[in-house]
């Protein structure tokens, strides 16, 4: 066993320990491998010695497998892979200290032990190359980002190829081949990632179209990535009739979590208790004391199990409806309804804001130790502790909106190591789960009780169905903060995400919507109001021809023009903002980065940030997204600010 092979092991261990965070273990193992170069430390090993070492490895592996599968279930196989370099190392180091090119294969297979026993005549197996590759695979599981890992893997494999003995070809020729392989491998890797992502999206899309249901009531954890993996699925999962028109965006909370660790949110106490209905009514109060809300939502959804959690507004007052058999609620206001399986509906009344029935607990202020230092630093930098809770929440929102970008990458579920650290410090971009998690922890660090909420953001109005709808990709995560004696939604995800996802919708979304609607009508047949059923027959006949043709025609012409000033629809509001022509001009000269927040973009273009810009952007956002709009005075102010901003931009360009 020569020096080059030991160097290969050290390279592999360095990469693995870097990505797996096993610095101490990796350094120790590498030091042992280097020490084996010393002739004075050579150890004579008999086959029986190797048997014992192999037995030790087997025991370690079995123990690791049990632990990982018990703790992580099926995904335990990835954890096993991460730890494998530790487990197999005894065999490798035995070979290193023995200084032989291989170990008896009988050590690895019981049948060969019977055949060869203690004899040294049996076949030999080299453990160095397999160990090298095992380290690389382990590193691939632990690596957080593809870029650095691709570079490491390419370099390590290149070193291996150049280190291999070859007599037929000169070293320069082999070097050229290795470089060619590295370049070609890089291209193949990039292409493979793209193909894999498309395949995965397609699979998730198809699976979700047919088998996705509601949240499992017994699912007491959610990992970062649980929401984002559904972001390409357009299936309509909620249909909402609202009276009056709700304040948008409408956040419907389906589940809440309190404890965060290792990229996973969990709810330690998930005990549901039954809620008593009001006497003589199919109405269950969700507040103490019972009150009736000012707004009302009729929510229609497919109930796949008799009992499941349901999405509700955070300030829901009552829930009711003929379909409900029983209502249960847990300690963090997650509500579970027992309803018939199939298309079911329930009515919710909500508002006005009222004190929370459940006071915050100690766990609503807990920041995990692994993130405490990081989060505290951010909280200190933002001076959150000195601000009132509402202002602290607003500052966090502003902070993320200014310095971070929305992206669906990374979509890794159960991410390894410290995903939030990567998000905050390195990538500075992510999806709603990262923003929500960081917001909750920062609020907690500032002394504001906060929870992690998962549900839907409702903002799309279906002209066809004449009601609000929520698709699977509208699934969202945000923070709930205890502010002014009640739990309030704090959504720090940069506001452009909804449009980004909307633009990524596939061309066949209209067709799928129609099919989904027909399915919904079929399921409702016989269970809904008479007029509802009466529509079914003519619509099924004509919709397949006329509506389908209309939808296809609209698709072929392109997406509906949201910028038309006279549309008057809810989702098209504010597209005549005075800032928009300016932004269009700016886009020609300084195009924004993907998902770059508006403030960050303008700051970059102007070369600085001031109150004029902040005010203009704030008014623009309010005009654009606030359902109540802005006053005429404010609109005039926006026009003036836009003109002022335009002059500054021209000046900046001249410079």
């Amino acid at each position: 066993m020569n020096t080059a092979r030991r160097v290969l092991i050290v390279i592999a261990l360095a990469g693995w320990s870097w990505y797996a965070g096993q610095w101490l273990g990796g350094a120790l193992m590498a030091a042992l491998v280097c020490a084996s170069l010393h002739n004075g430390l050579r150890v004579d090993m008999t086959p029986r010695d190797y048997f014992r070492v192999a037995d030790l490895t087997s025991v370690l592996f079995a123990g690791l497998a049990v632990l990982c599968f018990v703790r992580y279930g099926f995904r335990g196989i990835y954890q096993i892979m991460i730890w494998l370099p530790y487990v197999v190392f005894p065999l490798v180091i035995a070979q290193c200290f023995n200084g032989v090119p291989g170990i008896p294969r009988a050590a690895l297979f019981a049948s060969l032990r019977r055949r060869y026993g203690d004899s040294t005549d049996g076949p030999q197996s080299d453990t160095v190359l397999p160990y090298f590759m095992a380290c690389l695979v382990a590193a691939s599981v632990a690596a957080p980002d593809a870029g650095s890992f691709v570079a490491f893997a390419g370099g390590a494999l290149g070193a291996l190829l150049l280190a291999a003995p070859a007599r037929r070809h000169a070293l320069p020729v082999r070097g050229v081949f290795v470089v060619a392989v590295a370049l070609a491998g890089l291209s193949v890797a990039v292409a493979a990632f793209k193909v894999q992502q498309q395949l995965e999206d397609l699979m998730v899309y198809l699976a979700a179209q047919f088998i996705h249901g509601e949240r499992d009531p017994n699912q007491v954890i959610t990992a970062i990535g649980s929401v984002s993996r559904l972001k390409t699925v357009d299936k309509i999962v909620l249909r909402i009739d609202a009276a009056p028109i709700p304040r948008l965006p409408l956040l419907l909370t389906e589940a809440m979590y309190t404890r965060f660790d290792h990229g996973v949110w969990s709810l330690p106490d998930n005990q549901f208790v039954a809620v008593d209905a009001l006497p003589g009514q199919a109405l269950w109060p969700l507040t103490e004391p019972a009150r009736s809300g000012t707004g009302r939502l009729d929510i229609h959804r497919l109930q796949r199990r008799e009992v499941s959690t349901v999405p509700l507004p955070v300030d829901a007052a009552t829930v009711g409806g003929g379909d409900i058999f029983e209502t249960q609620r847990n300690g963090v206001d997650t509500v579970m309804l027992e309803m018939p399986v199939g298309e079911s509906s329930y009515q919710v009344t909500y508002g006005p804001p009222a004190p929370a029935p459940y006071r915050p607990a100690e766990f609503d202020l807990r920041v995990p130790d692994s993130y405490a230092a990081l989060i505290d630093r951010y909280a200190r930098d933002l001076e959150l502790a000195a601000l009132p809770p509402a202002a602290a929440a607003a500052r966090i929102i502003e902070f993320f909106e200014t310095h971070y970008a929305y992206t669906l990458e990374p979509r890794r579920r159960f991410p390894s190591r410290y995903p939030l650290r990567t998000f905050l410090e390195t990538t500075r971009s992510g999806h709603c789960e990262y923003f929500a998690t960081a917001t909750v922890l920062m609020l907690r660090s500032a002394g504001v009780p906060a929870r992690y909420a998962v549900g839907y953001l409702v903002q799309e109005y279906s002209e066809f169905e004449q009601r609000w709808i929520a698709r699977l990709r509208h699934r969202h995560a945000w923070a709930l903060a205890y502010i002014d004696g009640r739990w309030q939604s704090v959504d720090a995800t940069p506001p452009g995400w909804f449009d980004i996802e909307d633009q990524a919708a596939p061309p066949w979304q209209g067709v799928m919507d129609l099919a989904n609607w027909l399915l919904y009508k079929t399921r409702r047949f016989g269970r809904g109001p008479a007029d509802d059923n009466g529509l079914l027959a003519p619509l099924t006949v004509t919709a397949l021809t006329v509506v389908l043709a209309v939808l296809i025609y609209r698709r072929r012409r392109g997406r509906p023009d949201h910028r038309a000033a006279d549309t008057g629809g809810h989702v098209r509001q504010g597209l005549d903002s005075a800032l928009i022509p300016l932004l269009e001009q700016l886009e020609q000269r300084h195009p924004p980065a993907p998902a770059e927040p508006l403030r960050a973009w303008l700051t970059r273009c102007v070369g600085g940030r001031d109150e004029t810009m902040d005010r203009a952007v704030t008014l623009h956002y309010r005009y654009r997204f606030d359902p109540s709009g802005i006053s005429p005075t404010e609109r005039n102010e926006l026009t003036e600010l836009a003109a002022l901003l335009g002059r500054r931009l021209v000046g900046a360009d001249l410079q």
Partner: protein
Amino acid sequence: MGRALLYRAFAPTWRVGRWYERRFTPTGRVFAGTFLVALLFSIDREQSLALALAAFTGTALAVAWLATLRLRPDIEIHRSLPERLTDGTPAHYEVTLHNRGRRWQRGLGFREIPAPSLPDLATFDTFRSADDRLRPWFDRVVGFPRWLEMVRLRQGTTTPAARLPDLPPGASITVRATLTPLRRGRLVIDGCELLAPDPLGLCIGRQRLSMPAASLVLPRRIAVPAIELRAHRQYQRGGVTLARSVGDSSEFIGLRDYRPGDSRRHIQWRAWARLGYPVVREYQDEYYDRHLVVLDGDEAPGGFRQFETMVAAAASLVVRRQPADALLDLVVNLDAPTLLTSGRGIAASAPLLDALASVQPRPDQAGALRRFLAQTVPHIGSVIVVTGQLDGEGAELARSVVRQRVACCLLHVPADGAAGGAGEAPCRVVTLPAESFAAGAPASAAQGAEEVFA
């Protein structure tokens, strides 16, 4: 049904495995294994970046494979296999290579390609391997390792690659190659191939040359116990030169008076008419020792392995040094019972070994063998019957010999080296020791090929 389906999967699996072993260097095999493992782990992209690893290893293998397509060394090869080999004994022979090209040829390898011979299901089912008891339960039930062992035995030899020295343009070199037969019988070689690794050292390019050749593999020799039989000079009609013939000799010496018992075919009718009393033709007679080795042609209860040991024992008896004035005969069942004789200048032991190299169990010829032996034994001084079972056809053969008052001994080759008892044997029994049994069995299928491109 299930077994037949399983059996059908053996050959494709074997071909894939053989291709994998021959096509990749050890480093290439690790790359291929990593490629598959990385693919497996990259199923869930959110859990690992193993797809990048799969892309790199896969690309490296593809580039390496493409590079091997350019392997076209212009080399002329001459080699002559020995006509006879011995089972289990490495045979060395020379291979001459001439580089007709204008480039140096470096790092080449050379390997013979034995003709593949796959067993059918019936043959496979009758095959018993002693290694089975060392194999895990699963392997025993499925039987694939046993199938591999059988294929390797039928193929006749493992073909380790030999590394060739660097070959300058226009030069010729002669290298010594080694071939180790794994079983007796005819060994057919389809050709040979030149091997060259790609620049990355992952794949092995192969240039196949059709150079068919065949050798006869003689049975291996083992230590057999010394068997002392009564020396008994016997009247041999026709003498040594006709000792291989069964029946009366026809080497004419002269005329003599008729004696009762003379064959009527030997009466010289003209002389009788002329002399008035019967006269017969007299032929050359000789008295000398003659020993006979009989190989029991019945199916051995221990199967292939036991029968091979019986053959090895018979071969070892045949080549054992005989008294200078004795003849040694061998009776085996080829297509029919056949007598072969060696000694005293008639022949060396080679024809006997040739016969033993080709002999197979012929239970259908048991009666014919007994009848043939009954005719032969009267001229024989002593007989050794090599048999696998003491209560079977071997014992019947011995009994027929003893009935003719000829000294006889049963050399018992027990199944799997188990101790055998004399029981109701009609004559003395000598049991082959277990260590001889192990040595007589064909080589284990576990023999691996030497790695040339490690």
